[in-house]
C-alpha cells in the first residue's frame, strides 16, 4: 500500500484516497509545434524500473493535485512536492541522488 504525504493539506493519505494522474512534468505542446513534439506530448511516456515522477490528486481529501517522486521497483517514496512547478525541487533530487546514485529520468538527474 502506497502512503503519500499531501503537501497541500498535510495529511498522510493512503493510495485509496488518491487518484493517480500519470507522469509528471509533461510539457504541453500547442499551436506551432511540429508533429514530433506533439507525438512526444501526447503518446510518449516513461515506464521506468526505478526512479519515477508522478502526478497524484488527493481526491477524497482536499481535492488538490501534487507531485510525487518514488521508486517503481521498491515502492520507496522519495518525497512529494506541490504541483506548481515544472521540475522537481533540489531537496527531492538530492534525496534521490543519496539513495540512487547516478539516477536519471528524462532531462533530470
Amino acid at each position, binding site marked *: 500500500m502506497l502512503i503519500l504525504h499531501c503537501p*497541500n*493539506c*498535510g*495529511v*498522510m*493519505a*493512503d493510495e*485509496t*484516497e488518491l487518484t493517480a494522474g500519470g507522469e509528471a512534468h509533461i510539457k504541453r505542446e500547442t499551436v506551432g509545434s511540429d508533429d514530433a513534439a506533439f507525438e512526444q506530448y501526447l503518446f510518449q511516456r516513461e515506464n521506468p524500473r526505478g526512479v519515477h515522477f508522478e502526478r497524484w490528486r488527493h481526491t*477524497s*481529501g*482536499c*481535492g*488538490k493535485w501534487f507531485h510525487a517522486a518514488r521508486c517503481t521497483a521498491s515502492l520507496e517514496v522519495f518525497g512529494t512536492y506541490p504541483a506548481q512547478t515544472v521540475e522537481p525541487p533540489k531537496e527531492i533530487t538530492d534525496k534521490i541522488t543519496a539513495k540512487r546514485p547516478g539516477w536519471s529520468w528524462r532531462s533530470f538527474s
Partner: protein
Amino acid sequence: MSEAVSALKSAEYQGFARVSECGLRGMITVRGDLASRKLTKAVEDATGQQMPKPRMVNTDGPSGIAWMSPDELLVMVPYADVTGKLAQIDKALAGEFAMAVNVSDARAVFALNGNAREVLAKLSPADMRRSALPAGEMRRTRLAQVPAAFFADADDAFTVVCFRSVAHYVFDLLKAASDPSSDVGYF
C-alpha cells in the same frame, strides 16, 4: 412553502456506538484566498468563531468554521439562519475574489457517540489514533465508497458529514460498523 426535512429524519441506531442523524444543519461553502483579512472577518463575524488553522475546525454548538482545503472553508450555522448569514457573508465579500454558496440541503450530518474511533477506523483509511487525529481536527476522507468528512470534539464524540444523496448508504455503513457483536476493541 414546503417543510424542509433532513435526509433520514433524525434516524438513530444504538450499537457499541450510538449513531444518530443530526437533522437539518446550515452549511455554507466559502472558497477564496484564506489569508485574506476581508474573508477572515466575513466568516468570523458570521459564526462568532475564529478562523481555523489548516485542517482544524472551530465550533460552538451549531456554529463553526472548518478548514476544508487550502482555498475552501465550511461555515456552519443554525439551519434557520442560513439565508441571512449567507447574505451577510456575500455583503462582506463584495469586491473579493471569493464565493459563498448555501449547501445545507446537499449534506447529511451524523453524530457518533461511544467508541466512535473504532467505527470510523473500519470504514475509512484515516489514521484514527488520538495522536494522529486529535479533537478539533477535520479529516476529509472516504467512508467505504463515498467521500465524507469528520471531526471529534473534546469528549471524543464525532460529527460525520456526507452528501445527502448517500445519507442512507452512510447510515447503513455506520450501523453495520457499530454492530454490538463487531467491536474489535482496538481503541
